């Protein structure tokens, strides 16, 4: 093997390593929704090895995912090459993973933001899509806490105004 081939191979190796270790879930799906790539994040959180999921249909692996809904969601990604988004506010999670911080976290599961992005092949068509899963549990937790705080503050101020108006009478 020539020197440049080896270099390419080495580069490919660390690129793959990066994909594997980045703290974001990366899943590549083909048009039939078979899993093509399943990175370390997905492996650790789901407990499923890449060898267990590779070339298997997402809906068989995770029967709780609503198939018609998910297919509809991916349609524009395949056909229009636009991205699609899912937020935790809309759906707390797509994959039910336990909280990253099982001891100090207050939520049982991981809240997820998900981006579906088209992978355009050399011929310009989209044969595969990339799904990126972000852990937003901390954001969700603090937003929920903030909201409950706002509710209690407004309740309290309502009470005090009532007392004030009673005072005046």
């Amino acid at each position, binding site marked *: 093997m020539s020197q440049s081939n080896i270099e390419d191979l080495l580069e490919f190796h660390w690129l793959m390593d990066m994909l594997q270790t980045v703290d974001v879930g990366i899943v590549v799906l083909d048009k039939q929704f078979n899993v093509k790539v399943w990175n370390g994040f997905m492996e650790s959180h789901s407990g499923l090895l890449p060898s267990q999921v590779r070339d298997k249909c997402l809906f068989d692996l995770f029967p709780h995912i609503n198939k*018609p809904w998910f297919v*509809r969601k991916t349609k524009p990604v395949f056909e229009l090459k636009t*991205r*699609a*988004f899912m937020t935790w506010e809309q759906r707390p999670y797509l994959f039910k993973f336990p909280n990253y911080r099982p001891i100090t976290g207050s939520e049982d599961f991981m809240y997820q933001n998900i981006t579906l992005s088209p992978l355009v092949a050399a011929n310009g068509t989209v044969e595969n899509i990339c799904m990126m899963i*972000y852990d937003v549990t901390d954001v969700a937790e603090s937003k929920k806490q903030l909201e409950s705080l706002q509710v209690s503050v407004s309740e309290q101020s309502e009470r005090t105004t009532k007392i004030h108006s009673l005072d005046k009478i």
Partner: protein
Amino acid sequence: MYSVLICDDSMVARKQVAKCLPQDWEVAVHFAKHGAEAVQAINEGKGQLLLLDLNMPVMDGYQTLQAIKEHKLATKVIVISGDIQPEAHERVKSLGALAFIEKPVKPDILEAVLNEHKIRLKAGEESEDEPSLDPAIRDVYQEITNIAMGQAGDHLARILNVFVRLPIPNVNLIEVSELHMMLTDVAEKDAVSGICQGFLGPGVSGEALFILSDSSFGDVARMLDIKEEVDDRIQLEVLMDAASILIGTCLSGLGEQLDMGFSQGHPVVLGQHRSVSELIAANRLKWRRTLAIELSYGLEGYSVQCDLIFLFTEESMQIMNAKLAHLLED
């Protein structure tokens, strides 16, 4: 004529403030003895600018600010008070006051504050300060948006099986206050819902704003082939999906024209009134005006009305103008 309302329970203080107004500023001055009178006067159009004291009977300054905020009264407020605690400053600012001046007020300080907030424009400055855009550049932006829209419309028509009435893009420089009004409108009327999404290309950044009237939800859901009953959760989903399709197709069209790719951040729901005003308030100092491309969509045979607004930062315009320079040449 510009109207100034001075609200203070002390007659001495009212006179003192009135004397401090810039001599050469032609304004109609009105007075109020407490907050309730001030609110009434503003409602009667007597207070484009309100100079407000804090400690007053009947309705104090804080309550007045609250009322102005609640009823969305069109007035700019500068608080003039003897209360010099830092917390008082913070509190009135958070309630929407532009500035805080300590009593007794001095003419030069008042003038500086008026200038700082562009309330009193120096002679000749007024016309210059109006947002304006070189017609040639406006044309270019309009044209590239038209082309991008054409492509986006074609995509949409194919995926939704409907005829898309292509909107005429409205290209303008808008001021922060205008955007503020627009967003407050979204947050206030429960009849519309909005989403915003940041986008980023090399040297170009901005935000896309998607606003859908609530009466459109049923139709959009049908077009997106959603069979479930359209409850709150589904509405959010419809909003997200419609927004990503429209924003995505438009951005890729614009990107093609500008020869750059855009990445998109995660969309954020603009629902709660509070988050909207905070969103803009935090950014208030960073920018004054921005390039806005407004698109208003309609779909044939459906009562769907939605607006898409692309806002570009001022710095982005330089890069975009350079990229589009070839279109400007004769």
